[in-house]
């Protein structure tokens, strides 16, 4: 007790005296913990939104869906579609007819006479009516939600100024819009707006928070475009009548007794009576959402932990400096009788105090950050309610303390090894090396502790289920029995320690000159030398190769075989040259590298071999449950080890790069020379620090550059793929009106000035009948689905993909305006001579190919006519299947299948649309013309489509972006810490310089130069790495055609940001140091 008290007071005093050193170390931990706490709180906020008010989320106790694509719904093709109850819309979708709704309402009232039954739909009669808001800039998408305004759940929804939706919607033309739509289109209460498909104007009566609809399956539409509520009486306002009986897309049921038993019994009864419906109850939602939030939480926590681990680098740095500065004190403590473990404990207490204080600060910062995040709308632009998550704070705190202790462990172990004799030579502050045993212990403890952390987060999600007799993929990709898995993991921990410990004698071997070694030692040394040389050359080769590829890609906008082979040649030459130079000057580097790599090889291979043996034995001995726990736990450890190997590799690369920096010509400018030298002498710490910054920059640049390049790619490709900058959508109307619409559209496009070219498209909703092979055999839907499942082993619902893609056919003009594409064997594009022929081209996405369809096959479809209820059957020959595997990100719009526009034997299409190229300055006149001549038309510009794509990408990357920024902030804290440490350490050097008459500004200049160099290095490496990674991805996605989608600007900005961060850190810490009084040189610390 007494001793513990001594440890605590002593450490506390030391930290207090430590000033800046302590401050920046605390900052490192705090930044990491803040990341964990804020992300976890965010997770809790998301969870809160998804799991409370379930009845409101579900819009009732029971929600009833008609057949159609989507999770939990029955496929239209799998049920008998009774046209009394159901009407078909879209390719695979159905909706309830009025009599369908009434039947379900009646049935419900039989079970619960006091139940409230309501419904909603998303567009009146016509698939596009009411879905566009006409604005000055053209048509803008908005998502319609048409409800019964007096249904209790909607009626009581509050607008932002506190009124009830049910009260403000009084007439069919009253609407309530979402706040994001109001912001985007500049609307406020009382404004009058025009919606496509209606002649009358609508009045905005209220604005609601988008949150009220955001957490439903309409998530994307709602957050992307915004929505409006209108009452179901709005049907009268829209002037279409396609003759069909479309009534409700969903039915809501509010029971008088919402107890789970009642809900499930009534929903089961309904399902039995109406076999085609699917239901969603509050408990279904709870289950689904808690699965989702569980996954989100784990992911978010894991990302936060990465931040914390980056901060851990700062802890290692700080603790090493603390220990180094106090070697003499440690020696004194040892002379008066403190044992090694007592010294270790003393410093461990110190790092734990650092951890506790830093984590406390981090928790506060984290909560503040979470509050900020709330306003930044990270989660797909939805507003989340602030939730104080006690668990997030506790977790952050504990993780912070534990990580600090783990990272502080190695330095404190070193502290314990300081020789007491040091006290007689106080000027020597070289730290002792750890012995094999200590290294073994240290690494095993570190791996196990980190493994437990990972396990506590991931639980058993990654590890195999021991009961199932599945095979496991082992580290090297080879497959081992699950018995081996446990052993691998278990012994990897130990083997990692052994492997690491193997480094110690290896390094010892390196330090001694060859003459002093025995025969065996010499040959081992040469072996290591050779091994190191080979690996180093290969590493460099890969590095230069990748740089070469990026460079040629930048120059040519394309990755070509020639470019790649040229880079390879240059890379090999450069790699060899550098290896050769280094070999002549610093042979030992290779021996060290060899030793390190050998250590890892031992660690991995030894672990695997031992592991397999032991695992098999243990698997037989342990009872099942315990074993599962062990497997889970060990999986965590194995993960940590993999990460460790990765990190060490990166640090190794960084180390070499820092060394290479010294070779950059300094032009005989002393300041630059000194800066370079400072970097190289401290390269161990510099490379550790760089690691932290590099991870931060890497994540940030991966996210931003990926998003940026996608945006650029879409911007470039959209017009190409569409074949124009304007899309005109119309609804074909009923009867034979469609022919007039088509003619009118054709005429407008033909006659308006500024229309450079255009093509007309008609879209048909069809029912797939069969695929007919050339030999006459027929494949039905179920057989195609079986083929797909055999070819694509996924859990996803492939059948709905098939239903959608074989559910509509486009008619296209065959006058040569169709895009040039690559086709699978024997295929071709539609030609002018195909006009009037029943021939089709299919877009060959992967699932489509998996059906086994071939060029030359025939597809048979039914064309239902909703007005007459009759079906016409047509048979099309497949003349081409496009090769789209690499172009799946392409932005083609329209159906997966198209045929000549005049090959449908006069059947009425569902929609008529057109793609045109219109000169920019003629656009508004064009819009006017189109609207005048084709009443139902909506004019969309690709610019607008681009905006949508951009917004979608932004929303997808928002959360990763926040995480990356947090990582970078943590990296910044580590840099600040490192700069502070190195300037503190170099006070004497600075004092000497000043006593020699070097001015303060110049000293400061040198410090800043050194740190901007470091920042630049981190920037180049981080951004460079992500370019390397992304280029592979782009080359794969876009088939080598980069088309300027490399975001050079973003890359440069990110690099500048990196320099700025390290400069900032340097300025903050170096100003004081540069003011060091020359007198201090004379004083002893």
């Amino acid at each position, binding site marked *: 007790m*007494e*001793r513990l008290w*001594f440890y605590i007071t*002593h450490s506390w*005093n*030391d930290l207090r*005296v430590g000033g800046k050193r302590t401050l920046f170390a605390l900052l490192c931990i705090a930044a990491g913990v803040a990341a964990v706490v804020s992300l976890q709180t965010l997770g809790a906020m998301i969870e809160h939104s998804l799991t409370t008010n379930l009845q409101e989320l579900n819009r009732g106790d029971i929600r009833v869906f008609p057949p159609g694509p989507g999770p939990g719904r029955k496929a239209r093709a799998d049920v008998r579609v009774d046209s009394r109850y159901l009407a078909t819309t879209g390719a695979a979708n159905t909706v309830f007819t009025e009599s369908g709704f009434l039947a379900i309402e009646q049935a419900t009232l039989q079970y619960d006479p006091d139940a409230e039954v309501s419904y909603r739909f998303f567009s009146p009669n016509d698939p596009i009516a009411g879905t566009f808001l006409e604005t000055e800039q053209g048509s803008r998408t908005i998502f319609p939600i048409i409800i019964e305004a007096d249904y209790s759940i909607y009626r009581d929804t509050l607008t932002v100024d506190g009124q009830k939706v049910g009260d403000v919607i009084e007439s069919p033309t009253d609407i309530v819009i979402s706040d994001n739509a109001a912001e985007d289109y500049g609307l406020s209460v009382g404004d009058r707006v025009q919606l496509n498909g209606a002649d009358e104007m609508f009045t905005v009566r209220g604005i609601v928070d988008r949150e009220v609809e955001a957490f439903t399956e309409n998530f994307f539409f709602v957050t992307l475009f915004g929505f409006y509520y209108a009452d179901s009486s709005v049907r009268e306002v829209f002037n279409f009548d396609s003759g069909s009986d479309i009534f409700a897309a969903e039915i809501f049921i509010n029971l008088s007794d919402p107890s789970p038993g009642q809900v499930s019994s009534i929903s089961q009864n309904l399902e039995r009576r109406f076999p085609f419906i699917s239901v969603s109850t509050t408990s279904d939602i709870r289950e689904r959402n808690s699965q989702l939030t569980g996954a989100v939480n784990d992911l978010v926590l894991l990302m936060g932990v990465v931040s914390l681990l980056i901060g851990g680098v700062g802890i290692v740095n700080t603790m090493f400096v603390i220990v180094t500065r106090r070697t*003499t*004190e440690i020696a*004194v*403590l*040892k*002379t*008066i*009788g*403190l*044992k*090694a473990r*007592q010294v270790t404990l003393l410093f461990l207490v110190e790092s734990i105090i650092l951890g506790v204080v830093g984590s406390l600060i981090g928790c506060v910062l984290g909560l503040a950050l979470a509050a900020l995040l709330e306003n930044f709308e990270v989660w797909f632009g939805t507003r989340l309610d602030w939730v104080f998550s006690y668990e997030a704070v506790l977790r952050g705190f504990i993780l912070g303390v534990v990580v600090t202790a783990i990272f502080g462990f190695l330095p404190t172990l070193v502290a314990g090894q300081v*020789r*007491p*004799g040091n*006290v*007689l*030579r*106080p000027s020597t502050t070289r730290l002792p090396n750890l012995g094999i045993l200590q290294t073994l212990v240290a690494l095993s403890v570190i791996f196990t502790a980190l493994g437990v952390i990972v396990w506590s987060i991931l639980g058993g999600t990654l590890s195999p289920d021991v009961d199932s007799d599945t095979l496991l993929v082992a580290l090297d990709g080879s497959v081992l029995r699950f018995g081996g898995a446990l052993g691998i993991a278990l012994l990897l921990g130990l083997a990692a320690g052994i492997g690491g410990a193997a480094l110690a004698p290896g390094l010892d071997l390196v330090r*001694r*000159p060859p003459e*002093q070694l025995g025969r065996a030692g010499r040959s081992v040394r040469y072996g290591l030398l050779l091994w190191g040389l080979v690996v180093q050359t290969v590493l460099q080769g890969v590095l230069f190769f990748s740089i070469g590829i990026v460079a040629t890609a930048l120059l040519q906008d394309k990755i070509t075989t020639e470019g790649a082979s040229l880079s390879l040649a240059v890379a090999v030459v450069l790699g060899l040259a550098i290896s050769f130079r280094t070999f002549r000057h610093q042979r030992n580097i290779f021996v060290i590298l060899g030793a390190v790599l050998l250590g890892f090889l031992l660690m991995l291979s030894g672990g695997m071999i031992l592991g397999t043996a032991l695992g098999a034995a243990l698997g037989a001995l342990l009872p099942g449950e315990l074993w599962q726990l062990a497997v889970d736990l060990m999986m965590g450890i194995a993960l940590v080890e993999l990460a460790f190997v990765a990190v060490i590799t990166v640090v190794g690369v960084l180390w070499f790069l820092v060394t290479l920096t010294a070779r950059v010509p300094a032009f005989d400018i002393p300041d630059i020379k000194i800066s370079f030298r400072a970097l190289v002498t401290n390269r161990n710490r510099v490379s550790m620090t760089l690691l932290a910054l590099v991870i931060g920059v890497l994540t940030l640049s991966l996210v931003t550059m990926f998003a940026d390049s996608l945006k650029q790619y879409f911007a470039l490709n959209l017009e190409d793929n569409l074949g124009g900058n304007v899309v005109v959508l119309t609804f074909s109307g009923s009867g034979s009106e469609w022919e007039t619409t088509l003619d009118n559209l054709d005429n407008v496009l033909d006659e308006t000035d500024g229309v450079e070219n255009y093509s007309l498209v008609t879209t048909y909703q069809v029912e797939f009948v069969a695929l007919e092979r050339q030999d006459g055999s027929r494949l039905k839907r179920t057989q195609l689905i079986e083929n797909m499942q055999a070819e694509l082993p996924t859990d996803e619902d492939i059948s709905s993909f098939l239903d959608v893609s074989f559910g509509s056919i486009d008619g296209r003009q065959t006058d040569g305006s169709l895009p040039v594409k690559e086709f699978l064997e024997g295929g071709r594009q539609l030609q002018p001579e195909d006009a009037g022929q029943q021939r089709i081209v299919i877009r060959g996405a992967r699932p489509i190919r998996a059906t086994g369809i071939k060029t030359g096959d025939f597809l048979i479809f039914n064309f239902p006519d909703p007005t007459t209820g009759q079906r016409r059957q047509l048979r099309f020959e497949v003349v081409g299947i496009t090769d789209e595997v690499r172009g799946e990100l392409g932005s083609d719009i329209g159906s997966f299948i198209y045929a000549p526009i005049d090959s449908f034997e006069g059947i009425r299409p569902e929609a008529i649309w057109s793609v045109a190229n219109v000169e920019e300055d003629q656009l508004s006149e064009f819009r006017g013309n189109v609207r005048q001549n084709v009443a139902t038309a909506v004019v969309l510009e690709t610019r607008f489509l681009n905006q949508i794509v951009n917004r979608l990408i932004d929303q997808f990357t928002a959360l990763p972006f926040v995480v990356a920024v947090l990582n970078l902030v943590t990296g910044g804290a580590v840099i600040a810490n490192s700069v502070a440490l190195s300037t503190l350490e170099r006070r004497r050097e600075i004092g000497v310089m000043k006593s020699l008459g070097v001015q303060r500004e110049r000293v400061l200049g040198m410090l800043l130069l050194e740190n901007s160099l470091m920042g630049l290095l981190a920037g180049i490496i981080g951004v460079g790495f992500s370019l390397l990674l992304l280029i592979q991805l782009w080359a794969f996605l876009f088939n080598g055609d980069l088309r300027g989608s490399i975001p050079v600007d973003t890359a440069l900005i990110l690099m500048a940001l990196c320099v700025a961060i390290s400069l900032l850190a340097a300025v903050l810490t170096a100003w004081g140091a540069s003011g060091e009084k020359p007198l201090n040189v004379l004083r*002893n610390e």
Partner: protein
Amino acid sequence: MATNGLAVQLENVTKSVEVGERHLHVIKGITLNIHRGEILSIIGPSGSGKSTLMGLIGGLDTPTTGRVIIDDIDISRMNEGRLTQLRNEKIGFVFQLFHLIPTLNAVQNVALPIRFSTRRQYDPTTRAVELLALLGLGHRLRHRPGQLSGGQQQRVAIARALANDPPVLLCDEPTGNLDTKSGQQVMDALKEIRRDLRTTVIIVTHDSLIAEQADRIVTLEDGVIVAERIISETYR
């Protein structure tokens, strides 16, 4: 307690260290007996191995060959754990640069070795206050090292060295960082301690005035004893 009246026996002790790639022979065979209660001065030029020798006697290091016997216990082949205990109980160290723990006050510094003693004989604080009073620092008990003069710091260091009442006190240039007057005060304190506690005191010094106050002076040059002069026979 030594049966033969010898506090320290060195038998043909050598010590070599590795400096970079070479072996450096720092101590080249020293045999020396030091009596209980004796004050021994070791003088010699810089780099002659004085500090290294002190380290060997005090169990900070082990000899390459030969035997070091403290209080009849051979410590030449002891492991680090037992050496630590030995240092705690049998040896007191005083250094040129004082090496007090800067964050602890005088009493805490002195009490430290007692707190970490496995066989505790005294109450840490009481003992510390007593010793500090003995060394004339009764009025500076709660001061931190930074608030004390050099001479006062060195006396705190001596008190700390005496905390567990060790038979041997090793002082490596204890007056090297002090002015003549403070140096003499420290020397007086050491003599007083020897008189009151019969502690064996070994002093490495450059200062001939200090060296002359010992019972015996040994001169070291290049790792070997080149001269020995007995001044007083009182403690033989």
